[in-house]
């Protein structure tokens, strides 16, 4: 059975996030405004005022409270949504760790924005990177339609009985958050049907006085290790589950994104670019142009950052002559991009091929077509066996 073709509407990425959340009928929504996420809160509040969204709306006094409120609501048995960005994510950090440790199936939109150092009200994925070890599932998306679709998929993933983990859906602030484009809005009853699979699963453990349980007990040594082990095991299961949900979504709604990663013209490629977020769209265009010139370049779009899609990446890159990674953030202490350093950890399986790190797009510097052409040229040279620079801060070199 197929879903109806949804209504087409021009909307921003933030609006798409709000639509995605609203369609999933959350019981509780709590969030606090922060640039560039604010529009999500506003849109959800409008939905509520119009009676389209019947959730308990909590206009919290800070992000820390937002995360605590939604995590507790999910443990009580509800469906809950929040959205944040940058310092907001940092301000809720203790609660972010706790939500994961409690296995609270929260869904959160994180609108990527810079954090450290000077107050950069601008795009960058550093906020997401700072929470990569928090025990959350982290997904990165590319455009408004993918935001809406992925938030619906995120609820299916977070609340799945075998997973029960919080999911963070990331999209580049300023670029995607404010860009308006055409988005298909699925019909409510179709979203209900897509999520109804969850109702066929066993009821997850919830806080209810008729069957008293405790959350946050003191656990030491092996008890604690066992919990950590189970958490890691659930993260591992999330990879395959995400692929399955993506396929289900595609079969029903007619749109799918490849699950953990999306490969673009990689099959016969000599070398590949690996990147995520809004840079993917530009990269696709440049890959097409280079292909027209006869350059055998492919593109891998990383969608799932946590858990890390090791198996998928190995399969996609093994046999290629070189790979270049574009990061919109840095790995402090390694002086390279974070996605790059994680890919390097797969060298034994992929093989000892040139791996190049490109740092670009920090603080709303545009990742332009010339930048990506340069990336492709550099990887092409490395693939031919020429000497190469391991780490390139593209905009800084251009300035000189």
């Amino acid at each position, binding site marked *: 059975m197929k879903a109806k073709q949804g209504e087409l509407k021009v909307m921003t990425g933030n609006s798409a996030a709000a639509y995605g959340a609203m369609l999933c009928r959350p*019981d*509780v929504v*709590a969030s606090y405004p922060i640039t560039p996420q604010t529009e999500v809160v506003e849109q959800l509040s409008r939905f509520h005022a119009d009676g389209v969204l019947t*959730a*308990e709306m*909590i*206009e*919290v*006094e*800070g992000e*820390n*409270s*937002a*995360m*605590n*409120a*939604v*995590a*507790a*609501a999910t*443990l*009580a*048995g*509800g469906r*809950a949504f929040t959205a944040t960005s940058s310092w907001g994510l940092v301000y809720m950090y*203790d*609660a972010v760790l*706790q939500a994961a440790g409690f296995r609270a199936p929260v869904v959160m939109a994180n609108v990527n924005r810079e954090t450290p150092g000077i107050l950069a009200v601008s795009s960058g994925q550093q906020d997401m990177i700072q929470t990569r070890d928090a025990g959350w599932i982290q997904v990165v998306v590319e455009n408004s339609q993918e935001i809406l679709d992925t938030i619906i998929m995120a609820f299916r993933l977070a609340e799945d009985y075998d997973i029960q983990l919080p999911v963070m859906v990331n999209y580049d602030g300023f670029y995607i958050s404010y860009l308006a484009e055409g988005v298909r809005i699925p019909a409510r009853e179709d979203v209900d049907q897509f999520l109804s699979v969850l109702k066929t699963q066993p009821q997850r453990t919830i*806080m*209810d*006085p008729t069957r*008293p*349980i*405790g*959350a*946050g*007990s*003191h*656990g*030491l040594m092996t*008890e604690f290790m066992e919990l950590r082990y189970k958490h890691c095991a659930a993260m591992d299961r999330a990879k395959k589950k995400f692929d399955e949900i993506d396929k289900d979504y595609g079969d029903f709604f007619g749109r799918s994104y490849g699950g953990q990663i999306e490969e673009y013209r990689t099959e016969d490629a000599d070398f590949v670019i690996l990147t995520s977020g809004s840079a993917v769209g530009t990269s696709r265009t440049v890959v097409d142009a280079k292909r027209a010139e006869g350059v055998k370049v492919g593109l891998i779009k990383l969608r799932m950052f946590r858990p890390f899609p090791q198996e998928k990446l190995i399969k996609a890159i093994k046999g290629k002559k070189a790979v270049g990674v574009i990061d919109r953030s840095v790995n402090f202490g390694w002086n390279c991009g974070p996605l790059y350093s994680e890919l390097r950890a797969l060298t034994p399986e992929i093989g000892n091929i040139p791996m190049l790190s490109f740092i670009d797009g920090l603080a709303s510097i545009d990742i332009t077509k010339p930048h990506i052409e340069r990336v492709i040229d550099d990887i092409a040279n490395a693939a031919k066996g020429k000497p190469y620079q391991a780490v390139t801060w593209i905009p800084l070199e251009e300035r000189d």
Partner: protein
Amino acid sequence: MVEKVRKLPKTFQYFKDEDAFAGGVAFCAGCPLELTLRVLSKVMGHETVIVGTPSCSAPVLYGQNVGAWHRLPYYSCLMTGVASSATGLSRYYRKAGKDVNVVCFTGDGCAADIGFQTLSGAAERGERFIYVCYENEGYMNTGIQRSSTTPFGATTTTTPVGSAGRGKTTHAKNLPMLMAMHNIPYAATATLSNIDDLSKKMQKAMEKKKEGLVYLHIFCPCPVGWGIESDMSIQVCRMAVKTNYFPLWEAEYGKFKLTTTVANPEPITKYVKMFRKFNHLGEKELAVIQEEVNQKYAFLKHLTEFGEHGIPAETPAGE
């Protein structure tokens, strides 16, 4: 044979459920927390979720590598997230149509310091749960450090007495008053020496939380931290009331009322002699404490003389 029927104390009329706690619990000897919690579980009943945080009550409420010492559901979160977690729980229960009491139970450090923002936010939003703060005037679980409710002159491990130090140099934050000033449906002070009053206020809290946030501030002197003999803690509670150091009052939507009036208040010197944390203080410093007690009480008395100035937290739509 005539059966001798013992008349139950008045407190029993407020009890609706059995004690939810085990026979012996892991509190320090003489700590008022144990009896406070037992009374709470009897008055508020078992349809209650306790929300709390690492603190003195944590070993009993949330277990310490053993199960918890009671049969109520509990949610132990971080110190920053007690009132906000209670918000999430109570909002979901409301949405789902479940009648569950959500009761926060934390010390003054959480309520007045690190968790104050979220408590204040919940009060302003009219969240429907009960927040119980047990006031032991410092961070006792981590080893007697000062909090913002530690009184002037008190010695703690972070305000020690030495050749230059004379204990805490600033005065305590008046937390119950601050909470009442949020115009919440119900704020009250209570302590174990006046157990009828305490139970009655807990029962009233259950009613008033249907309208918005309820805040109960319960005086709980710490035998270990203050240097109180373990059989004297309730006597300390009693003297705190008799000296007006801890007056018993309630406020509905900002309308104050004294629930116990002391005809001839005892001098503060009688209170401070009962334990060791003020031992180093001289006459001048004690006079400062006496003056503070007088002023705070005068202010409270003044507030009770106001007319009906409280307003309901929420006005229903369309009215």
